[in-house]
Structure formats: structure tokens, C-alpha cells
């Protein structure tokens, strides 16, 4: 159960890029001007242990809301809707052969009243240069310089052309020079009195509860809610119970049987929807001599009943993944029209056996397919305690066994599992794991399929894919970008470099008793979960009292 939160959080942190070709800043947050309500909004982004007094935006473990409610980046690029939201920047434009991006800044103040200027932006980036430990997205591996061009204009110059990377750059939280200049290494600092530009400031902190209070001088207008309250709950029952008993307004938790436990308790006010957030894959180690054979991967893909995984392992909270590696419907616009009919993966055990027989495999005395005396027998790694994936692994084992492929499920501690998958020496055969996503499918593909990708777990190295991805990264032309991705989609469909299983859901529950205006399934205009950095503040600015 813990897993959902962990991956969801990990992914949301990575979900910060976008495709910058799409005509600059597009979507200004709609800021309603309504009287401020004093009823606190109870937010549980994820049940976890006690809080620590740390609101450092450069710490991967900063408390929820640090990024968004307090600190803002220049722009926010949403991975669910693909839209761009202007935050501290109001406009950006590419030049110099797509190596330079110029950003116009908003004229606003820090929460302590001091003005926000381009000096703060330059300071922030130079600080990351000075302390690489804090530069967790590797900005200075790509950046050549960050320079101010007047008090409200900043020019970013990259070493090479990499348009999508700018989405990481423009997503860096900006901190005030006057507070941070004396702090030293930001990766080691714990920030207990944060000064930001966001709609809220830190009100009070204790290990079991912290509160944000409205920054009434926020550039986007007076926040509609005076206080945001973040109580700490353990992952087991306490958080679920709090939600079920109506004590929480906005949550990003996994709940078993959510309809019965949560919605039915107050069907008028209790709602949820779980938009797809990433693709959960059955990774195949392509360095393995047998798994490198396409028919074997195809057969496995055909033999897995994804509906069963989605309904039993995943409690019906998600849907089977697409064959193209795209997240649908989020990425609907990117589907190669020629592949429209092949988007859905089929479950066909009989066909799976045929594929193997055609490839020269025969069942041995144990009923397992074998060729040259080598049976199809693999280990499958999952994280111990991530119970839904553990269950899925068990189901996959049963299904593959049914067609004649033997699988041994190995439940590993997270660190061991992670070392096996993403360490330099990849010692696994099959593994269930996530994908890293962004506002366009490029990010998922670039992470997973590019030969130098961050999460190229299956160790693919394919010229066609690499060329297509590089081509994509150097252009701002949407037409060209689509053509590039179509190539990757085709590769995904035909070569099955890894086997898509189902979508990893974004956890999102909301209660409209006190406040309304939450994103809904009918209008999914933004990633709606309270654990999504930056989107959280944009959502709150759209809420209004229910009465």
C-alpha cells in the first residue's frame, strides 16, 4: 500500500517537463476574487509518518506544499492536461537555434514584502551550480549560463539544443537571494521559516500537523481559503478512517474499496477520480539471451490478462495500458493515426503459444516451453510490501504458467530491487516497475527507451528510437515532434521492448462539503492530486466555499 504513494510522489516530482514548442505560455491561472473563507481546508497528500520541520524546496523530502504553496517556479507544465501555467514567468521565447530561452518575469513581491527580481532567479541557478548536490535535475549539465537582462527578464543559454529539457529548467523553484545567500549548501539546509512568492506562507508546524496561511498579497489575488491544514496520518488505517469519516477535504491516498468506504458514506459530497499518471511496465532485460527474442516478449504480452491485473491487483482503479506506450486519454493527441486500431492490447493465450511454437519452442515434460534444452523460466522482481504489484506478480505468474512459461516471483526490499533495476549492473530478468512521465509522451519514451535514458531499465539501444528522440528534442515544431514520436510508437508496438501492463493512477479524493471547484473527471484540466507540486496551489486558487 505504501508503494502507491511512493511512486506517485516520485513520479510527480519528475512530471515537471513539457513540450516547449507549443507557443509559449498558454494558460494563465484563473484567479477568482471571492471573500476568503476561514474554515481550514484539510489536506492529506499522502499518509506518511510524522512531519519534520523542513520546507526546503531543494530537499527531496520537503513537506508537501513547499513546492507550490510557498515556492513557485517560472512555469508549471502539467502532465495530465499537457497545459502550461504561468507562475513567476509570464512569457518565454526560444532563440539562437533553440539554445536560448528568454523569460519575462512577473512583477511581484516575496512574502516578507521585498521585491522579486531577476537577481533572485540568477541567484537560485548559480547556487545550484555552486552546490551540485542540490542540483538534483542536473541543470548545469545542460546549462551554459543564466543571466539577468533587466530586473524582470532572464536569459537561459544551453550548451546544446534540448528543447524539452527547458521544462525542467523553468520548473526550478525560485528562492529569495536575501534569505538564501547566507544559508550555504541548500541540500543540507532545513528551512523552517520559508519566504516564497506563493499563495501561502507557513503558519504553524508540529510533527503531527502543519498549517499554511494565506498570503493576502499574492500576485494571483487573495487566496480563497485562509488556512490549509496538513495532519499526519500513518499509512495503515488512520488516514483511511479520517477520509472515510469526512475529516479530510482533499487527499491523494490509496483506499481499498473506495466506493464503499468513502463515496457511499456521503455520496453527495465524497468524490474521487484516478486519472492515469504513468504506465506500469513488465520490464524485460534485453541483455538476457532469451528475453532478447521478440517472440518470447510477444508471447508474454499476449498471455497476460491486463483486465484481471487492473481489477484484482489494482482494485479496478486503473485500466490496461495502451500498446503504444502512450498514456490515454492524456496523450490522445499524440496517437499515430495509422495505429488507431492497434492501440488496445489483446489477451490471447492461444495465440501466445502459437507465437512460441512458430519460434521453434516446444513444451517439455513439465509443460514449459523450451528450445535447445533451455526452458522459458524467468525470475520476476517486485518490491516486497507493495502489495498491489505483489498481487499482480502472482497473477502474471499464474497466467504465464498457463501458456507454458515459468516465472519465479522474487519479492525484494526496495533498495535491493532498485539496485538490480537501475544500478549499473542490471541483475534481473523480469520486473514490474513504473515509467517516468512528463507533459508529453516524449518524456516517458526518452527515459525508458533512449539508450542513455535515466530509466532505460531494459537496456534498449536502438538507432531508430534514439534518432527520433534526438530529433524531437531539437525542434519546437509540433508537426515534426509528432512525426518523431510516431516512429517510437511503432517501435513500441512492433518490437515490444518492454511489456506495458496498466496505467499507474494519480490518487485523488475530494470532498465538497466545505469547498467546491475541484477538478473533476468530466473536466480534468490539471493533475488534481494534492501531492502534485505546483498543481496543488493552482487547484486551491480555484476553490471556493460551498455555501
Amino acid at each position: 500500500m505504501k508503494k502507491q504513494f511512493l511512486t506517485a510522489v516520485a513520479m510527480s516530482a519528475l512530471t515537471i517537463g513539457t513540450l516547449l514548442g507549443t507557443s509559449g505560455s498558454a494558460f494563465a491561472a484563473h484567479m477568482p476574487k471571492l471573500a476568503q473563507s476561514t474554515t481550514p481546508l484539510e489536506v492529506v497528500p499522502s499518509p506518511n509518518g510524522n512531519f519534520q520541520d523542513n520546507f526546503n524546496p531543494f530537499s527531496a523530502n520537503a513537506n508537501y506544499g513547499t513546492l507550490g504553496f510557498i515556492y513557485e517556479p517560472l512555469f508549471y507544465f502539467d502532465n495530465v492536461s499537457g497545459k502550461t501555467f504561468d507562475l513567476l514567468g509570464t512569457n518565454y521565447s526560444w532563440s539562437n537555434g533553440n539554445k536560448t530561452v528568454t523569460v519575462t518575469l512577473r512583477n511581484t513581491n516575496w512574502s516578507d514584502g521585498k521585491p522579486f527580481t531577476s537577481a533572485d532567479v540568477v541567484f537560485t541557478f548559480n547556487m545550484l551550480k555552486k552546490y551540485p548536490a542540490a542540483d538534483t535535475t542536473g541543470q548545469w549539465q545542460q546549462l551554459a549560463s543564466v543571466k539577468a537582462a533587466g530586473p524582470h527578464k532572464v536569459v537561459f543559454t544551453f550548451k546544446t539544443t534540448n528543447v524539452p529539457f527547458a521544462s525542467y529548467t523553468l520548473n526550478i523553484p525560485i528562492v529569495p537571494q536575501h534569505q538564501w545567500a547566507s544559508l550555504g549548501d541548500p541540500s543540507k539546509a532545513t528551512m523552517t521559516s520559508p519566504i516564497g512568492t506563493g499563495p501561502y506562507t507557513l503558519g504553524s508546524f508540529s510533527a503531527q500537523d502543519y498549517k499554511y496561511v494565506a498570503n493576502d498579497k499574492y500576485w494571483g489575488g487573495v487566496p480563497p481559503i485562509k488556512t490549509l491544514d496538513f495532519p499526519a496520518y500513518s499509512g495503515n488505517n488512520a488516514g483511511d478512517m479520517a477520509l472515510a469519516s469526512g475529516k479530510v477535504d482533499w487527499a491523494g491516498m490509496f483506499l481499498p474499496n473506495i466506493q464503499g468506504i468513502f463515496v457511499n458514506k456521503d455520496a453527495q459530497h465524497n468524490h474521487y477520480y484516478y486519472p492515469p499518471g504513468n504506465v506500469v511496465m513488465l520490464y524485460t532485460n534485453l541483455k538476457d539471451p532469451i528475453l532478447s527474442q521478440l517472440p518470447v516478449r510477444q508471447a508474454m504480452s499476449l498471455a497476460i490478462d491486463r483486465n484481471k491485473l487492473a481489477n484484482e491487483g489494482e482494485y479496478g482503479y486503473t485500466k490496461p495500458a495502451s500498446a503504444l506506450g502512450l498514456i490515454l486519454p492524456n496523450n490522445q493527441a499524440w496517437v499515430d493515426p495509422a495505429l488507431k486500431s492497434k492501440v488496445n492490447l489483446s489477451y490471447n493465450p492461444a495465440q501466445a503459444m502459437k507465437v512460441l511454437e512458430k519460434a521453434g519452442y516446444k513444451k517439455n515434460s513439465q509443460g514449459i516451453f523450451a528450445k535447445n534444452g533451455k526452458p522459458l523460466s524467468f525470475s520476476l522482481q517486485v518490491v516486497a510490501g507493495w502489495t498491489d504489484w505483489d498481487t499482480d506478480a502472482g497473477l502474471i505468474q499464474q497466467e504465464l504458467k498457463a501458456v507454458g512459461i515459468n516465472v519465479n516471483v522474487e519479492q525484494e526490499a526496495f533498495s535491493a530491487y532498485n539496485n538490480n533495476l537501475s544500478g549499473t549492473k542490471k541483475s534481473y530478468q523480469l520486473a514490474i516497475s513504473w515509467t517516468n512521465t512528463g507533459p508529453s509522451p516524449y518524456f516517458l519514451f526518452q527515459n525508458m527507451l533512449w539508450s542513455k535514458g535515466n530509466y532505460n531499465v531494459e537496456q534498449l539501444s536502438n538507432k531508430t528510437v534514439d534518432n527520433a528522440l534526438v530529433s524531437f528534442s531539437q525542434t519546437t515544431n509540433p508537426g515534426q515532434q509528432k512525426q518523431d514520436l510516431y516512429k517510437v510508437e511503432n517501435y513500441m508496438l512492433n518490437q515490444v521492448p518492454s511489456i506495458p501492463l496498466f496505467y499507474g493512477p494519480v490518487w485523488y479524493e475530494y470532498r465538497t462539503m466545505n469547498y467546491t471547484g475541484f477538478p473533476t473527471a468530466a473536466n480534468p484540466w490539471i493533475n488534481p492530486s494534492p501531492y502534485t507540486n505546483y498543481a496543488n496551489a493552482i487547484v486551491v486558487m480555484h476553490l471556493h466555499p460551498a455555501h
Partner: protein
Amino acid sequence: MRYFLNKLGFLLLTIWAALTLNFALPRLMPGNPALNMLAKFQGKMPPQALKAFELQFGFSNQPWPIQYINYLGSMLTGHFGFSYTYYPVHVSTIIAQSLPWTLGLLGISYLVSVVLGTVLGIFIAWRRGGVTDSITPIVSMTFQAIPQFWLAVVFVYFLAFSNNIFPMSHSYGNTEVPGLNWPFIRSVVYHGFLPFLVVFLTSVSGWIIGMRNNMMMTLGEDYVVFAEAKGVSPRRLIFNYAARNAILPQVTSMAIALTTIIGGQILIEQVFSYQGIGFQLTNAVTSEDYPLIQGMFLIVAVFGVVINFLVDILYGRLDPRIRRRGATS
């Protein structure tokens, strides 16, 4: 004095054993703390962070005796390293924050179950063969046999979730301002009641039955019969002659039973999201926060050992025979 030194020596020895266990376990496992830390960030950290983590977690390629000495040194000075989950927060900060809650809850539930259990044990031994004597031990034994977490969950469900009589979680209300003010104290008591009740119900049995049996044994002792014969009043007989002696074996088990109470409280804090050491420890385990696990375990162990020491000293005070003999067990 010799008794005291003996016990103090044992205290130090046990703490050393706990420290060494803590040192050995992670080193017996594959990988190293810095790699684990890096894994925690799931690729968000550049490879050069590894070097930094190795420095931060005190991991080095030095021969292990040197590592061990460095480790002991940093542990003794309270440098437990950084937590993975809360990096860059120090483990000692987290301990400082959760320890008072555990101490408070544990202290009170422990004290109440010892005192009440002992008094009840005296009472039913006095009225032995009566209705209370036949019912109390069985009822309390049943509670002792119930898994603590299960009882806690059932209480939360019926008394907090369904009926809203008690709060479901936390150690005080989110609207209270921590400090020495009445609403806060009241809130702490109110929130602590259910966790307390679970600890109490599941641990009181040992005291009741132990004390009852000790009393029964003591009531058969010659000095009690002798005292009865010489006309000592029943009250004085029960408390000053019988109970005063019967309580001695009880005190020895007090120290040992404490360890199970600490264990029980780990689970209970988890169920109630009570912001103590146990809650932190279990969460640290689920998120594989090894420095935090080690720090928490160390604190729990040291805490148990120190209380043990105090109980031993108390025992020495209660039993005049021990003061001179300096027995170790």
C-alpha cells in the same frame, strides 16, 4: 554501592551490545547506506551525490575496527546521521521530537498497569476463592492473549470511527497550541486515552496474576502466619507483611516486562498515528530509512535498559537483603 556498580556495569554493557548490533546488522547486508540513500531518490540524484552521501553517512572503506570506533564515537555524541526519508534532517532531531510522546504515554500506561495490577493482585489474593478471584485472572489473561494491534484497531473502529467517542488518531487536537495550557493538556489526555487503554488492558494481566500468585505464596510464609498470630491488624498484615514481600519478585519482572510493553506500544502508536518512537520506527522500516531505524532502535533499547536499571535500583531499595549481597539477577 557494589550492587549499584554491578547494575551500572550491566547497563553499559547492554548499551554497548545494542550499539554493536546496530553497527553489525547493516554491514552484514548487501549494499551500503549511501547506495541505499541514492536508491531512495530513484534516479533524481546525480551519481556524484553518492560521494556526498558516503561522507554524510560515515561510510568508508576503512578497516572495520576503525569504522567501529568512529561509529561508537559518533553514537556516544548523539550523531546518529541523517534520515533518508527526512534528509537533511538529523536522526537525533527526529528522536528528540518523538521521544517525549513515547515516554509520556508509556510512562503513564506502564505506571498505571503496574500499580493497578498489583493492587488488584493483592485484592484478589486477599479475597482468594471469591468471585473476583475466579473472574479477574481469566478476563485479564484473555486481554493479554489478544494481539495488541487488533484490540487497538477494534477500539478505534468502535469507539472512534463508528461512535466518535474518542479521537481516532494523533496525540492532541490539531487546533491546540502545544504548551502548558489547559486545552492542550486536556487534548493530550483525551487523545492518549485509547492508546493508554490498549496498553493497559493487554499488559495488566501479568501484574494481576503475578501479584496474586506472589501473595498466595507469601501468605503461606511463616512470617505472615507469625505476624497474624502475634495480632497484627489485617490491613497491616496484608500490606506491610505480605504485599511488601510479595512485591519483590514483581519488581524484578517489572524491569523485564517493560520490554514487552515497549514492543506493544510500537504497534499501538502505529495504529493511532501517535507521534512517538514506535510510529517513527515502523514507518522508517516501511520506507527503508536505515539510519532512522537504527537510531530509533538504539533509543528504544537504551530506554528499556535504563528503565531496567532504575527498576533494579528500586529493587535494591525495597529489599534490604540485596543491598549488601550485590546479586546480579
